[in-house]
């Protein structure tokens, strides 16, 4: 142990270990500090390469130091250095544009195609609600008041005159362009809130999502029945179609997202519930993004076009055309067979 000329030979084993590697750690420390400040692109090619190899060496040192060294200063330094280097090396490397492009071309359509069961739950809830609302209304119009809160019906109640009801469908009113925009934004924030509640409540075993969507369906059914009774079925259908195809689908999709989470809680399969929830979250998040997107489009259409476009056929065409566009995007885009990446992205640009 003593008498050897080399300085390092005089040290105890763990000190020698440290002395031999310290320069490498310091270098890694500098690289990491720079990258933390200015990001990975600021490194030159050789530096990036060096970062990777120094990171691996430091990890190796940490592993060895844990078994041979009792120097707390060294251990905590290496631990922190490796942690910092790890966070730099394993940073997300996709560009934001790439992420968004992939989300629209592949992520969302594929998530939708994977979620047949929750989607059917969502649409079924709405459909059942509508049917029940419709039938109940014809049994006893009094049900209408049970379903529809007075501030929402706005005078459109059973027994209202044909001309008044008709006016609500075609009233161009004296809305200027500016107030239409405000109206659209109000609709959007209102609808998004409903959609987000429907989605979020799905975690509690799907049921609240289902009920809320069902309730939305009830409203729809009762409204429809009332207008149908007044002989305005087609008019109302067109009035609803222009934005409703998109908006109601968005609500159903939000419900499907919630249902997906709820199903994971209800039927986790072989996973633990928390893991199942996490797995289901992947598609559920994409569904809610899709629902949000559709609500934006629906609000724009509802806020502007519904009042500006007055003819039945045009309303029907716009509404269902938009629906077909959504469907085409969701069904056709992101099939893995072709290399077409930039497909029908602009269906939303109406």
């Amino acid at each position, binding site marked *: 142990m003593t008498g050897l000329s080399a300085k390092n030979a005089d040290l105890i084993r763990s000190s020698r270990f440290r002395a031999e590697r310290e320069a490498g750690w*310091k270098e890694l420390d500098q690289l990491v500090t720079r990258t933390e400040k200015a990001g990975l692109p600021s490194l030159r090619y050789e530096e990036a390469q060096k970062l990777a190899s120094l990171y691996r060496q430091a990890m190796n040192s940490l592993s060895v130091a844990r078994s041979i060294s009792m120097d707390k200063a060294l251990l905590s*330094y290496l631990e922190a250095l490796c942690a910092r280097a790890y966070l730099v090396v394993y940073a997300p490397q996709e560009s*934001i544009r790439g992420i968004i492009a992939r989300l629209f071309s592949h992520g969302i359509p594929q998530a939708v195609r994977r979620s047949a069961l929750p989607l059917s739950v969502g649409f079924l809830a709405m459909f059942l609600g509508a049917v029940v609302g419709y039938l109940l209304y014809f049994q006893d119009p009094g049900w209408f008041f049970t379903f529809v809160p007075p501030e929402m019906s706005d005078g459109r109640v059973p027994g209202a005159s044909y001309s008044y009801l008709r006016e609500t469908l075609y009233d161009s009113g004296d809305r200027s362009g500016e107030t239409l925009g*405000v109206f659209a934004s109000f609709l959007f924030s209102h609808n998004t809130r409903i959609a*987000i*509640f429907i989605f979020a409540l799905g975690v509690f075993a799907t049921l609240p999502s289902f009920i809320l969507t069902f309730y939305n369906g009830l409203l729809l059914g009762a409204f429809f029945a009332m207008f149908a009774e007044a002989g305005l079925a087609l008019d109302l259908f067109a009035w609803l179609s222009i934005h409703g195809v998109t908006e109601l689908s968005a609500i159903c999709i939000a419900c499907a997202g919630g249902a997906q989470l709820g199903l994971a809680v209800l039927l986790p399969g072989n996973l633990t519930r928390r893991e199942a929830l996490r797995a289901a979250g992947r598609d559920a998040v994409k569904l809610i993004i899709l629902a949000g997107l559709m609500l934006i489009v629906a609000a724009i259409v509802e806020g502007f076009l519904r009042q500006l476009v007055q003819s039945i056929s045009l309303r029907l065409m716009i509404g269902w055309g938009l629906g077909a566009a959504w469907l085409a995007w969701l069904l056709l885009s992101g099939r893995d067979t072709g290399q077409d990446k930039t497909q029908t992205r602009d269906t939303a640009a109406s």
Partner: protein
Amino acid sequence: MTNLAIRISPPEGVPISFRIATGGQRFGAQLLDILITFGGMFLFFLAMIWSGIFDWSLIATLFLLLVFFLRVPYYIFSELVWNGRTIGKRIVKIRVVSADGGRLTPHQITARNLMKEVEVFMPATTILSATVESGWVTFALVIWMLLVLLVPLFNKKRQRLGDMIAGTYVIDQPQSVLLPDLAANGTSQAAGFVFDTVHLEVYGRYELQVLEEILRQKPRTPEAVTRMEDVSKTIQRKIGYAEKVAQGDNWDFLSDFYRQQRQYLESRQLFGDAREDKYHEKTKEPE
């Protein structure tokens, strides 16, 4: 609040431990982010209201809408660009990491921030915008918000619901400071205390590292010197060191003892005899 630690296994297979950010830190970061997203806009709208050009309801709606369009993308994009750090988190020096040891995926970031919307902001804005007339709904929303806000305080890893769904932790940004090696500079002391195996049998790793912390700073005040001497005397008594240590040599004694004790314990550890603390003999016996 103490800092809890979690271990994350990177693909290299060497687990690294991180300290979980405290509730206070996260609250602070969140507050800063809210100030950043709301603050500027709030002032802008306040000016608009003050000038009285538009009526109140219109401004409120526009405000809600803009907040929604700014808020969600702000959190998602800033965490994407800065690898798990919003501006608030950068200032408070905390960040988000993926629990599985891989890199943070866009999905995880989106999921945890969308859930934030659901957990806190939506109920809050619903209450504030006063669109709900029924007191019961407001009451339920307040309860929901309180419960959700309490979740991170009552689980071990301080995860929000969003963190659980996304599989992420919020951690303290690690700081690395390399202190000098005490065993490397203690070699050329004149006093040259030498310890036998009997002396070195007593203590374990824990005591060694406590001694390391004591030796990090040379005592300056008379009180500190006395304290250091007390430590030295206690060690002499405990290990049964027979020779007399001169009054001025206590520091050298401790340094030499540290060096030789560390060498001894490290070589014992290499032979598979890891000694955690001074009770190592007792804990070994039952087996």
